[in-house]
């Protein structure tokens, strides 16, 4: 937390968790997909499902998926904007289980190139959020920093591969987590960094052996 979390953020009301947090989830999901969203299946969980509509959670999520910021005065008109943009969407409720934060949402997105991504994220207070699942695998990051997510086969040397690249490029790591389904199975590494990773370096990582998919969340890209 910093002072701008206490006096701030600038946001469209009425709720920092149900409106601003929702818009931020949408925007981070859009950036994770990395291209324009053409269709979104939105599954609301817990308090998002029960009091979301009255707080504009639905509109805020769509606005975020179109790349709007939490203080964009067009958030209340998100349905009309999305329609004009040719985007389609479907809202539903879901039970993500008792472990899930009450303000959680599952987004199943389709991009203009046909690319698909499923994201579970939670609005955890203030306008702060947490991404908790990507394509069905558990992760944990805030979306505040440049973040690289690497799906790979669990085998020795994968961490060193990323760590040495980041060292060569003089990029400081703020946090690092590794998750795996089982030994030798599908695994995910998440690195939150203090500065941006260049496009060619992301591509290099994606081309490495035993790497299945790389998703990069840039803070520079609008």
């Amino acid at each position, binding site marked *: 937390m910093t002072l701008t979390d206490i006096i*701030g953020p600038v946001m469209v009301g009425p709720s920092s968790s149900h409106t601003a947090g929702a818009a931020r989830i949408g925007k981070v999901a859009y950036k994770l997909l990395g291209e324009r969203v053409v269709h979104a299946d939105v599954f609301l969980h817990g308090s998002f499902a029960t009091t979301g509509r*009255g707080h504009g959670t639905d509109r805020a999520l769509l606005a975020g998926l179109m790349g709007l910021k939490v203080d964009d005065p067009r958030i209340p008109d998100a349905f009309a904007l999305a329609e004009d943009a040719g985007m389609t969407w479907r809202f539903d409720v879901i039970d993500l289980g008792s472990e899930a934060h009450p303000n959680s949402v599952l987004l199943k997105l389709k991009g203009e190139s046909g690319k698909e991504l499923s994201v579970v994220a939670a609005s955890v207070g203030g306008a702060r959020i947490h991404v908790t699942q990507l394509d069905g695998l558990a992760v944990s990051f805030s979306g505040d920093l440049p973040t690289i997510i690497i799906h790979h086969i669990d085998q020795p040397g994968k961490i060193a591969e990323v760590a040495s690249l980041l060292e060569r490029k003089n990029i400081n790591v703020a946090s690092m987590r590794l998750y795996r389904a089982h030994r030798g199975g599908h695994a995910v590494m998440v690195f939150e960094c203090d500065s941006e990773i260049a496009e060619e370096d992301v591509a290099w990582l994606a081309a490495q052996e035993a790497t299945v998919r790389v998703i990069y969340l840039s803070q520079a890209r609008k």
Partner: protein
Amino acid sequence: MYDALATICQKAKESGLPFWEVVCREDAQEQGITPDTSFQSMRVMYRVMCEADRSYEKDLKSASGMVGTEGEKMRLYRTGTGAVSGDFMALICERALKTAASNACMKRIVAAPTAGSCGVLPAVLISMQERYRLPEDEIIRALFVAGGIGGVIAARASLSGAAGGCQAEVGAASAMAAGAAAFLRGGDEDRIIHAAAIALKNLLGLACDPVAGLVEVPCVKRNVIGAVGAVTAADLSLAGIDSVIPADEVIDAMGRIGSKLPEEIRETGIGGLAGTPSASAITQRLKGEGAL
């Protein structure tokens, strides 16, 4: 951010720097920015507060229809009949209603410290700037005072209605605005934190019990109480009246009370006012209309 108001006061006394600057410098260091950059980003916050106040739309109502027009009613009353509490207090009430209602109507505001309590600081600061013809920079300094107090409340207790009830939102906002108001009238670090302590004490135990779970009833009117309470607490402190319980201990008490509040009155829209027959009827109506 600091975890004790006593620490900020001690640093102010040791360094000779004013309270606001101790807060500003520490924030800049923590974020790796210059104090001037931190000051300018706080200026942006104040300008958005002023813009939200100016752009209030008198006919706009929230999606539920429960709130929206109160600010204009208060203005008409204040400028017509005249208010029992006097013009300045009535103006503070009017401004708190306007910004809090704008938030409920999905307009752009500054969460300070939260969206639900966003009317308190602008009501006090804009009204004081007008009345005492203060330069904008002085109000920005006052926002650092408020931010320092809010930061300590976040560290020792909570700023979330779901965690600590309304005392953690409007109560915290009131404490922040009280310290800021005391500063704007020349109060030193001691007057600032006594003002904050008095304001927060007056709202200890306040439930978060929004009707239909929406940030509307009673939130909008509670912003008024937070703002008015802030100004009176600042006056008490500036008169030399101390809070017998030190500010940090008041905040700790708020945190303990918050953790003991039943879940029904912590932003769940179940207990308290939200559990009244009238609130249940409103909730049913809104569900029927598809607004919930």
